[in-house]
């Protein structure tokens, strides 16, 4: 399979819908195949890589911090970048700058600050574009 450049636009915030689980499954599959991925994290999705996310214990589940092993999307973003690099591909993860300012989530565990101009640039350079919008 030839290497492709693929753009993804995400909009959902973490912990609000199943859209991001679907997105990460697709991104993982694409990264494993060594494709070059461009991700524009827009609106609520700009919080996906927020560095201050923290896992927590869950007393309702009766589990401590380690047992609950609560997912954080910042770890998923970081794992995606590492996977792409190990697979011979790349991920350019862009967090919408105005979106992170609105939300106070400008400290990133992974990715960089950008703007809608990046999405335009990504789109122009890509073999395919997939928008996973908020519904």
């Amino acid at each position, binding site marked *: 399979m030839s290497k492709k450049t693929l753009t993804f636009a995400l909009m959902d915030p973490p*912990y609000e819908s*199943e859209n991001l*689980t679907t997105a990460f499954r697709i991104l993982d599959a694409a990264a494993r195949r060594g494709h070059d991925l461009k991700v524009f994290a827009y609106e609520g999705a700009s919080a996906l890589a927020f560095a201050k996310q923290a896992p927590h214990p869950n007393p*309702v589940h009766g589990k401590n911090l380690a*047992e*609950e092993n609560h*997912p954080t999307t910042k770890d998923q973003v*970081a794992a995606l970048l590492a*996977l792409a690099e190990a697979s011979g591909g790349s991920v350019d993860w862009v967090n919408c700058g105005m979106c992170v300012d609105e939300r106070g989530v400008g400290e990133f565990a992974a990715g960089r600050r950008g703007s809608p101009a990046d999405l335009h640039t990504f789109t122009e350079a890509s073999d395919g574009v997939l928008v996973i919008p908020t519904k």
Partner: protein
Amino acid sequence: MAKKTLNIVESAYRAVMEEQDDTVLWVLAAMQGAGAEHTVVLRGNAVNYAVTGQGAPALEVGKWKQTQAPRMDRDLVDLIEKRKMTVYAIEEDLALRGIDAAGLVPGVRPLSVKRLPGLMAEHQVVSHW
């Protein structure tokens, strides 16, 4: 004595992978632990929570692996057995989805939508989630 609250849960499978549970059922369980008195009615797509043996594969992204993927049937068992909550599922919504009552989590009570107004009248608070 706590107000009797009827919780009609219609939103389903929203963020359950990331939260590792349903946030509505979770908050009801937590409130019950604080003294609340809840009854649950599953309707719409949420009736699927009552199907035994369900589960989605854990999310994996590179070397990051989820270890506690949600099990909605298990969470209902927790509500019924540990929290002593009554849980209903709307019969008509089960039928629309081809779900046989024989495959439901033990303790989940099928309820005709025609009986819902009467059930609402038995509660002091009705919350639609």
